[in-house]
C-alpha cells in the first residue's frame, strides 16, 4: 500500500438522499462528491493515503491540531449535507478503497439507511450541559458554623461536619434539578442520549459536569424545547448550557451497523 505518492483513498462524511450542491471541500481540501446508489448519496472525498491512510492517519490522530482541523472540516461537510435534507453523519476516519465498496454498502443496507433517514427528517440535535460547583468550591461556600468550642480540634471537626452536610445538600439539590431538567427535555424530544461525563473536559471555571445530554428535537417544536431548558431556575451554583444545532451525530443509529 505504499504505492504512488498521490495514491488516494475515500473518506466518507455522510449518507443522505441528495448529492452536494455547489462546491463543498473536505478534510484534505478536496472537492466532495456524491457516490450514488439505491436512491442514496454518500458524501465522499478522495484524500491522499499519505496523510489520511494507514499508518499516517493513526499518527496524525495523536496531534490535537490535526484532529481539530479534520474534525472541523468533516463537520463542515456534514453540515452542508444537513442543509440539503436528512443526513446520517459518518464517524470520523471511515475509509474505503473505491467507489464500488461504498456502492455495495449503500445497496446492501439501503432499507436500513432509509429508515434511519426517516427518523431524522425535520429533526435537529441539541446539546444541553449542566455544570455544578466544584466540590471544593461548595465546601468553601459552606456557612460558618454558629457552634463554637473552646477546643480547637472540636471546632475544626464541627466545621468539617457542617461543610460536609452543606456539600451533600448542594449535591442533592443539583442532582434533583438535573433529573427534573432531563425529564422535561426528554418529554420535549423524540430521542435522547446521555454522553459521558468524563469524556468532555470540564474547562476551567466550568465546574463539575452534571449532565451532558443530546436531544433530538422536532424543528417545529424547538421553541417548546427551549422553554423546557429555561423552565426552572435551579440552584444558584448550577449552570445550564444549550449548544447546537448539531448534525445528528448522537442519533445516527443504523441497526446492525452502529455500536451506538
Amino acid at each position, binding site marked *: 500500500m505504499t504505492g504512488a505518492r498521490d495514491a488516494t483513498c475515500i473518506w466518507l462524511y455522510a449518507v443522505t438522499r441528495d448529492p452536494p450542491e455547489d462546491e463543498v471541500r473536505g478534510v484534505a481540501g478536496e472537492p466532495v462528491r456524491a457516490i450514488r446508489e439505491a436512491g442514496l448519496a454518500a458524501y465522499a472525498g478522495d484524500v491522499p493515503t499519505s496523510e489520511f491512510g494507514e499508518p499516517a492517519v493513526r499518527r496524525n490522530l495523536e496531534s490535537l491540531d490535526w484532529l481539530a482541523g479534520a474534525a472541523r472540516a468533516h463537520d463542515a461537510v456534514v453540515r452542508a449535507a444537513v442543509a440539503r435534507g436528512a443526513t446520517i453523519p459518518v464517524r470520523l476516519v471511515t475509509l474505503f478503497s473505491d467507489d464500488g465498496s461504498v456502492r455495495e454498502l449503500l445497496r446492501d443496507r439501503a432499507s436500513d439507511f432509509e429508515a434511519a433517514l426517516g427518523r431524522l427528517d425535520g429533526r435537529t440535535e441539541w446539546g444541553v450541559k449542566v455544570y455544578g460547583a466544584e466540590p471544593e468550591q461548595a465546601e468553601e461556600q459552606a456557612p460558618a458554623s454558629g457552634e463554637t468550642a473552646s477546643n480547637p480540634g472540636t471546632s475544626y471537626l464541627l466545621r468539617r461536619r457542617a461543610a460536609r452536610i452543606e456539600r451533600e445538600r448542594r449535591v442533592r439539590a443539583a442532582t434533583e434539578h438535573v433529573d427534573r431538567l432531563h425529564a422535561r427535555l426528554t418529554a420535549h424530544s423524540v430521542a435522547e442520549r446521555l454522553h459521558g461525563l468524563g469524556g468532555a473536559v470540564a474547562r476551567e471555571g466550568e465546574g463539575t459536569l452534571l449532565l451532558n445530554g443530546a436531544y433530538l428535537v422536532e424543528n417545529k417544536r424547538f421553541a417548546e424545547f427551549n422553554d423546557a431548558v429555561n423552565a426552572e431556575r435551579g440552584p444558584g451554583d448550577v449552570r445550564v448550557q444549550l449548544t447546537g444545532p448539531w448534525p445528528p451525530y448522537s442519533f445516527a443509529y443504523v441497526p446492525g451497523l452502529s*455500536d451506538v
Partner: protein
Amino acid sequence: MSDSPSPSEPRSEPRPDSRDAVLPVGAAGRYPERPERRLALVDLLDRVLAGGVVLRGDLSLCIADVELVRVSLSAVVASVSALTDLADAPDTEVPPT
C-alpha cells in the same frame, strides 16, 4: 427545513464560548456557508469521534473502530487539559461526598 429552529438566549449567564457554540440558522433554514464559528472543540470531538454511524470501510487499514477512537479521544482530552493547564476532569457523576 424552513422551520428550522434558532436558539434564543440561554437562561444561564452568557459565556463567550457557549454563545459561539450556538449557531444561527439562516432565513432559509440553512447553516451558514462559511461560518466563522468557534465550536467548542471538545463538544465537537465528543460527537465526531463517539457519534456518527460506524461503517466498516473495506480498507483493511480502516480504523473506524471504537477502540482506537477512544484511545485517541483520551489523548485529545489529555492534550486539551494540558493546553489549558487543567487537572483531569472528574469521572464521577456527582461530586464525591
